[in-house]
């Protein structure tokens, strides 16, 4: 077999191809010319292809170009062999070249068909142009949107800032808008991308990091007021933080808006201060009146005694009487001062369990005689004692006394406004079996217009003349009762005798100290 194949290459056995052409010079020239030109042309094509692929490195499927180059090169070679075999009968070698050419051709043809779908998918220059135009439009739209949002960010009066939550959980300041930059004194260019603790004073950084951490933990917006020391000084802010999540749900960013409320806070404090002063004024006037009575007695007696002394009519018995009286009256003044002191101390000390009944009695005792002079009777209801021993509530006794006093004083004012006498009934309904105690203060002061009822516990709401009431009494009372876990309500009532009035009801939860149950059981 091998010897057979080797015999193919023994050219002595064949005749040159020119013999078939009878060595006719014109026919030979035609063949040689055609083959040479075709071969040369074929040889030049791969050069062009390789040059193209070499220059256009980005071209898709560049290996196909290499395959084309090889196939055309092979085709060219068969033509040159056609010229060679006119004179040299190396048909075996020519066959090998043709076989190689056939192999490369088949490969190229197959590759081309296999490649066809992917080649078809390649965008044409026209398609590319359309895509490009669409891209340009989108870029323009996005730029416009960006400008619009940048406009919001840069021009909104609200302070805005963005915080990056880093994967390690630390916080970096991303940016802040010009309003916030001015309000805080922070330079956006200098803080951008830096950790909070590297930019802000240590105490401020600790405070804001605590808030940022809370917002991340909450996973939703948080809203708070804070006092921060910043380059502009100490300011009070009302801040809202909103977390932003990435696709995996991790909080990656916090959007903050902040409003400087320093001025508003200052005004609020001034208002509170003013109302405190107004309360103090009322208190001072009351105190001045209370103190003027004993002072009056002492002064009149002392000066009268002095006058007698100069006349020579002051005997020992009268001297003793004057001095005793002065001592008694100063003691009375001392008691007034003591009561003021306990009032001034009312905010100190914590809540304690106490029996509200004596506390209410003490408030009534304080005003009963004074009101009686104005024709206003204060009754405390039947005092049948308290079954099962005293019922205790939790709070500060003097605060409850203050609330009851305020209710009495309101009832007094309402009755006085009607220009005639009236009644105030105070009752403590302490049922040991129940879990609450009720204190009611009812008057014959004409009642409260229904439209005002929902507002009477609002701060600064008053129906009294300007300068007569601070409008704070009931709101303070509401706060005190609320802090004791109780509630205070008002309702108009019609008395049997046709008189109208208001009933305030304070309901307080009862506490039972350890061991009290046994006492109740044996009592």
């Amino acid at each position, binding site marked *: 077999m091998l010897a057979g194949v080797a015999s193919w290459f023994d050219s002595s056995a064949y005749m040159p191809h020119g013999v078939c052409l009878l060595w006719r010079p014109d026919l030979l020239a035609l063949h040689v010319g055609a083959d040479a030109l075709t071969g040369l042309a074929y040889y030049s094509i791969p050069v062009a292809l390789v040059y193209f692929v070499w220059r256009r490195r980005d071209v898709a499927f560049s290996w196909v170009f290499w395959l084309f180059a090889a196939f055309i090169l092979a085709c060219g070679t068969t033509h040159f062999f056609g010229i060679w075999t006119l004179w040299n009968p190396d048909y075996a070698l020519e066959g090998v070249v043709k076989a190689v050419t056939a192999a490369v051709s088949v490969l190229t043809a197959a590759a081309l068909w296999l490649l066809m779908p992917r080649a078809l998918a390649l965008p044409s220059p026209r398609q590319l142009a359309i895509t490009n135009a669409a891209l340009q439009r989108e870029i323009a739209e996005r730029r416009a949107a960006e400008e619009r949002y940048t406009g919001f960010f840069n021009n909104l009066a609200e302070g805005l800032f963005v915080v990056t939550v880093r994967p390690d959980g630390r916080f970096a300041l991303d940016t802040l808008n010009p309003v916030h930059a001015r309000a805080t004194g922070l330079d956006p260019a200098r803080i951008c991308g830096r950790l909070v603790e590297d930019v802000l004073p240590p105490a401020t950084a600790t405070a804001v990091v605590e808030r940022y951490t809370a917002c991340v933990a909450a996973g939703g917006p948080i809203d708070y007021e804070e006092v921060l020391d910043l380059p502009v000084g100490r300011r009070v802010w009302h801040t809202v933080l909103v977390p932003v999540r990435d696709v995996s749900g991790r909080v990656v960013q916090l959007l903050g808006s902040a409003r400087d409320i320093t001025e508003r806070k200052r005004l609020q404090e001034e208002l509170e201060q003013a109302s405190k002063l107004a309360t103090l004024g009322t208190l001072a*006037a009351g105190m001045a009146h209370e103190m*003027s*009575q004993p002072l*009056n007695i002492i002064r*009149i*007696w002392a000066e009268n005694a002095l*006058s007698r002394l100069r006349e020579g009519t002051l005997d020992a018995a009268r001297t003793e009487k004057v001095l005793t009286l002065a001592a008694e*009256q100063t003691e009375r003044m001392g008691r007034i001062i003591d009561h003021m002191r306990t009032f001034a101390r009312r905010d100190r000390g914590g809540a304690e369990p106490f029996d509200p009944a004596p506390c209410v009695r003490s408030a009534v005792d304080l005003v009963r005689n004074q009101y*009686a002079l104005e024709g206003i009777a204060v009754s405390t209801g039947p005092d049948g004692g308290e079954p099962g021993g005293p019922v205790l509530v939790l709070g500060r006794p003097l605060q409850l006394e203050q609330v009851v006093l305020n209710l009495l004083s309101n009832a007094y004012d309402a009755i006085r406004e009607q220009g005639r006498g009236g009644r105030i009934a105070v009752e403590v309904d302490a049922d040991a079996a129940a879990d609450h105690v009720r204190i009611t203060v009812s008057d014959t002061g004409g009642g409260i217009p229904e439209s005002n009822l929902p507002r009477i516990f609002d701060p600064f709401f008053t129906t009294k003349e300007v300068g007569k009431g601070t409008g704070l009494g009931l709101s303070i009372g509401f706060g005190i009762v609320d802090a004791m876990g109780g509630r205070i309500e008002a309702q108009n009532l019609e008395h049997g005798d046709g008189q109208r009035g208001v009933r305030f009801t304070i309901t307080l939860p009862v506490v039972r100290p350890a061991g009290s149950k046994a006492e109740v059981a044996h009592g």
Partner: protein
Amino acid sequence: MAETVHVLVAEDEPLAAMAIEDFLSRKGYRVTLAVDGLDAMERLQADPADLVITDLRMPRMDGHALIRELRRRDPGLPLVVMTGFLSLDGNADDITGDAWKPLEVLRKPVSPQMILDTLERLLARHAL
């Protein structure tokens, strides 16, 4: 003084009233004490006074009511008011206007000498 001047003192605090009575009596005045407005009206009915000294806050009939009643009966009667209140104006019971004169207000604590001076000033003017 040809005749003893009669002064009525309406004051519900007996201790203050007693000392005023003692002082004015020693200065030559005839003094009548009343515990409130109604008491004062009754005593004045029986024995008219040349001048009335009154407290404002009293049971049954207070100083304001008493002053109104006295003014209605005698526009020229000199009155002295003693009060422990800081302010007397700004309400319906305002007694600081000219309509109430002759009337003087003394703030507690008052001194007997002060009462005497006021009393003499009012009486001197009244006598003119």
